[in-house]
């Protein structure tokens, strides 16, 4: 647990007009437990609190804080309420993606081969279109949507899908969100964010295979 906060101001300094209400409010908000703030009506935007709270009230609250020692983290409920505040209620998803549990390091690397416009980045749920070629570590090409003859590319459509929704392997979902329109990148995706232990045997992807993709982000919805 963090060390107990120390008094910043003396009684005299507190009462002085030179000390703005905002500073006192900020200090209390930064250091007091949620329930303490709630009781003393010190929750919310500092400007708004400053409008409604009188200096005297703030001084009383400040002193009470140190007397009661109801600092942040001293109440077990604290953690839960913090998390509750942070969670956004998503409406019932039609899209279901597998839960992202761990926050470990990304299991892919990206090297930019051709810069994009650095302006149009896809957001989750938007439709992206890509040309791509997928190879295994040994160089075997297991998949591509780029037709062999260059002229045929006009009649073929790039692969389109909604990004960030778990429709494609995780490596793709994560990487594409960092790419901008026109960008071409080389992605090396570890098996865990590709086809994992099972692989995809009928598409020539063995188990635990690291996949390498050259992806060109053609358009963003």
């Amino acid at each position, binding site marked *: 647990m963090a060390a107990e906060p120390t008094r910043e101001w003396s009684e005299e300094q507190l009462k002085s007009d030179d000390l703005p209400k905002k500073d006192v409010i900020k200090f209390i908000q930064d250091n007091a437990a949620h329930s303490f703030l709630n009781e003393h009506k010190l929750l919310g935007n500092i400007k708004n609190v400053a409008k409604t709270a009188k200096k005297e009230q703030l001084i009383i609250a400040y002193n009470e804080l140190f007397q009661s020692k109801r600092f942040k983290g001293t109440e077990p409920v604290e953690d839960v309420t913090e998390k509750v505040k942070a969670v956004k209620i998503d409406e019932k998803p039609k899209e*279901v993606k597998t839960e992202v549990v761990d926050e470990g390091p990304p299991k892919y690397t990206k090297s930019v081969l051709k810069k994009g416009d650095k302006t149009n980045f896809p957001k989750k749920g938007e439709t992206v279109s890509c040309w791509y070629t997928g190879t295994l570590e040994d160089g075997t090409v297991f*998949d591509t949507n780029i037709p062999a003859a260059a002229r045929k590319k006009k009649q073929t459509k790039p*692969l389109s899908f909604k990004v960030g929704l778990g429709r494609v392997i995780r490596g793709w979902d994560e990487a594409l969100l960092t790419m901008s329109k026109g960008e071409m990148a080389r992605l090396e995706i570890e098996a865990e964010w590709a086809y994992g232990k099972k692989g995809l045997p009928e598409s*020539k992807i063995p188990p635990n295979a690291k996949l390498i993709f050259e992806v060109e982000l053609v358009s963003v919805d």
Partner: protein
Amino acid sequence: MMNEDQVNAIIQTWRDTQEEDLKPEDYKQFQNLGSTCLSECDSEQLLKFIQDEKNQGIVKSMGCVLLAPLVKEVIKKDKSLDHCQAAITHLTKTCRPNELLCSLHELIEDTDPGAISETILTLLPHLQTVLLRLDEKKAACVGMALSAVHKQLSRLPVPYTQKQEDADAYGLCRCCTALAVFTKPFIEEVKRKDANGVCNTEDEELKTELLKFCMRSLREPLLEAELHKDRQSPLWLFAVEIMVTLPAIKESLSGLLFFSSLRRSTVMNNSQSKESRACLAYLLFVQLITIDSFPAVFSPVFVLQCNMEYINQLLSSKKESHLLKGLELFAKSLECVQDNSLPVNLLELKSFYSVPQNLRQLLTDCPIHHLRESGLQVFQLFINKLDAEAKHKFFRCMLKTSNHTGVESYIIKNIRNQIEFSMKPENTNKWFMGMELLSLLGLVLRLPQGTATDLLNSMDKIMESLNLLRYMLIRDKELRNNANVWEELCKIKDEYLKMLRVCISISRAYYSAELKALKEDQKLKAKEARDAARSTRLIKSITVKHENVSNMSPEVQHQVLQSALVTFDLMESLIVRIEEITDEKLSKST
């Protein structure tokens, strides 16, 4: 009957008449002359007539009327085959395409039900010839032709075994092969135009018609057929043709299977189209046709999610061919997913609710043994892929909705396995080790009908629930870690066992009484038989001791009652064992 001179005179008249002056009677007469030729086995003369330079005017104006008799002749398969075919060929090259199409359509519509495949096989090549002559409206005409032919084709029974396919008694296989040949030039045309980037509306229309053809064929006959890559039967080859046609007309398989709900046309959105796409999914993912050109970037869970719609469609059917494909598609889609990974919110999707329910119904109601066997395997596979929370929810759902003791006992076995799995420190979870376990146990360890419970009917479930109890008591160390859980568990157990004991004693009393009555009845009957044998009375009296006269013989009745009593003994001995273990543990800890 006319003589040769009269015939020649009429022909000369026709040669000299303008087409617009020809009357319906002329057409009729021409047709009659043709038919007469054929019936007199003089097809050669008819052919000569048609090919004669001088008669081209007549042929062009009235030739179509000869199609019907010529085709009939070909179908009969007599010696005159070659001449007739040559005659038809000439007609199809000379007469006006629209008129030809009209006549050919009529012939398709009026197909004799006993000669469907022969008619289709005869007409298809000629239809193709005519359609290739069209300049405009080709797409619509191709569409109509394909539709008309398919209508007749779907009347043919689909062969289901290799033997049947080889025999091809009704000609379906030959017709499918012929259809594939028929569509080739149109597909090539579309491909060529695409490659040169010159597709216009007409070409797009043609693509649409070809797409409709593919979708129709997937549903009928392919969905009914047994298709296996090891056996490259004509229907298999037809399936491959369809799968190859789709990308040729620029229909991506991923578009059709995963994103079709976004599509505009009526081709896509109804249960028939769902059947077509279900067949497509099966051919792609299970039989692996053209899988190597399918994008290898979609996540396995997404693929499973999309396929669930089709699996649901297939498992809702009562046809063996559909169910088999549904089970295989389900198994294949599940295999690509990691164990213990499917999250609980997937179960909120309609298809993820319906499919297991359909599967459960298959397990309990389907009369076909191998389907039930496969169904059970897939059922377990599905369970294995759910994560802990999802398993918990699924088990609760099954226990509440299945109303079938066999299914319930299977679920309880799974619960036991999950508890065992969760006891390992790396697998611990609150769903099978914590307070949540109790909501599950509440559904397992209960007798909703109380003392009126039919123990024999619920035997499987009860025995399995007792096994679970025994297991938990033996492995109590891990479960006792949460004192609240253990306390509640003991409460539930005590109430359950109390009720169960009451039920057993009631049931046992009833069945014992029945057994006794049966024995008494037997004794009485035996005595009567002896008396009747001794006496000379002609009148025999038949005594009926019980109201419910069963169809079973007394011996069988006896067996049934005895085995019921044995069952109760079994249950009770298990309860006794459970209480023994409880006491053991109690004495150990004190």
